[in-house]
């Protein structure tokens, strides 16, 4: 028991808690950006897969197969080490230097670091494969009569998808989509392998600096659980509002 007492002994100094909070911020920022991009891309892929044109269906299926059957870590390594070697040298240099735009006295937009760019790009592609499957399942949940009704109103296939099928599909797909967003939060931890200072990276750093392994990983674990719980709560709220709105319409 004495071991555990020494492990639990002291709290982390405020400085190290600050590091972990910075990491949490990076994790949340990355997750939010990836959630947006992967949803947009996921909708495009889902639409392509449900198309009648084989030249759209085949590439979409190939994309899903490749991105779902290889580890995210390897994909990140490929984008980070591999593609930067394939790009022309001048463009790599441009990506690596810090660009910033000053908009007024308080707002300054800074071009993200190469690590963050890779993380956003790699995670978005990987997550889009999973998100598109949820959206496709949602599209199949929309009654066939809806498509026919859209056609009867004179909408073409694309318009029917855009105005009739997709809005309903996204609503049906919301619960599994939120599950995918939780996965995105968890998957951001892998970007520590390409040197992005997110929550897992900073927890490792705090651990190495302080030797307070239990506290460092403990706080990081709590942060992850809090982030997941936040998405869960948001989902409950959205679903309750949808139910209330549905009841009001009737």
């Amino acid at each position, binding site marked *: 028991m004495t071991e555990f007492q020494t492990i639990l002994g002291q709290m982390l100094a405020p400085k190290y808690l600050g590091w972990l909070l910075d990491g949490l911020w990076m994790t949340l920022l990355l997750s939010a950006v990836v959630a947006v991009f992967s949803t947009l891309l996921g909708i495009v892929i889902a639409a392509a897969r449900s198309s009648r044109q084989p030249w759209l269906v085949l590439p979409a299926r190939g994309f899903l197969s490749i991105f779902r059957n290889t580890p995210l870590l390897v994909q990140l*390594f490929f984008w980070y080490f591999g593609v930067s070697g394939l790009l022309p040298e001048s463009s790599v240099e441009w990506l690596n230097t810090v660009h910033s735009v000053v908009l007024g006295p308080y707002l300054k937009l800074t071009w993200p670091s190469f690590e963050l760019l890779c993380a956003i790009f790699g995670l978005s592609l990987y997550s889009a494969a999973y998100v598109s499957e949820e959206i496709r399942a949602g599209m199949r949940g929309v009654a066939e009569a809806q498509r026919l009704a859209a056609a009867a109103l004179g909408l073409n296939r694309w318009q029917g998808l855009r105005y009739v099928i997709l809005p309903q599909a996204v609503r049906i797909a919301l619960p599994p989509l939120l599950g995918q967003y939780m996965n995105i939060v968890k998957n951001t931890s892998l970007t520590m392998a390409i040197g992005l200072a997110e929550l897992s990276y900073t927890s490792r750093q705090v651990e190495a600096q302080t030797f307070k392994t239990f506290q460092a990983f403990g706080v990081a*674990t709590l942060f992850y659980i809090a982030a997941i719980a936040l998405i869960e709560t948001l989902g409950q709220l959205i679903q309750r509002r949808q139910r209330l709105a549905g009841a009001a319409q009737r």
Partner: protein
Amino acid sequence: MQLSVLTDNLPYLLWGAYPDGPLGGAALTVLLSVGSALASALLGLVLGIALSLARGWPQLLLTMVLGFFRAIPVLMLIFWTYFLLPIVFHIDVPGVLSVMCALALIGGAYLAHSVHAGISGIKAGQWDAGLSLGMPRVAVLRHIVLPQALQMMLPSFVNQWVTLIKDSSLAYIVGVGELSFVAAQVNSRVMIYPAEIFMFIGLIYFVLCSGLGLFADRVAAYFQASTT
């Protein structure tokens, strides 16, 4: 494309320094995956059955524990097992084993829910039929409910195992010499052709994962043919 970097390092990528050193590379990835797949299946089955049979506070507790494992990243759990196992068991736990434990716990937590869903999916009449024959609850579960439920659950087991193969790459983080680790090692040694190296090991993972997926489709089709 420069493939000599692959042919030069092929044995190292496939089985590490073996037989002169420890087993590594793709062979260790397979070993890690098989080990954690078996452990997660066993754990998922036991916990899933427990979740179905438990009532009241034990069920709540179990749900919370499973929720914990599902809410944290695999990477965090690897950190935990890597650091906690040696303290708890007072022995030097090798990295491979701690990673296997982490993967089995996560996989088991996910599978427990699919096992639970599978058991709940069996119609109540099956339970009643078994009980009316005078069988105890455990016997009904063992001889009537589980055989039917397991067939339904097979796809989720295979999905989870494909995920396990992919997640075994995370052993890289704690320095276990599986495929991703040796690839990163070769990459930092030769410093050129990173695209070729990572595409090649991506291909190995792809063959492993999609091969398992195809096999599962075959088995599922076989069961469907035999039941209808």
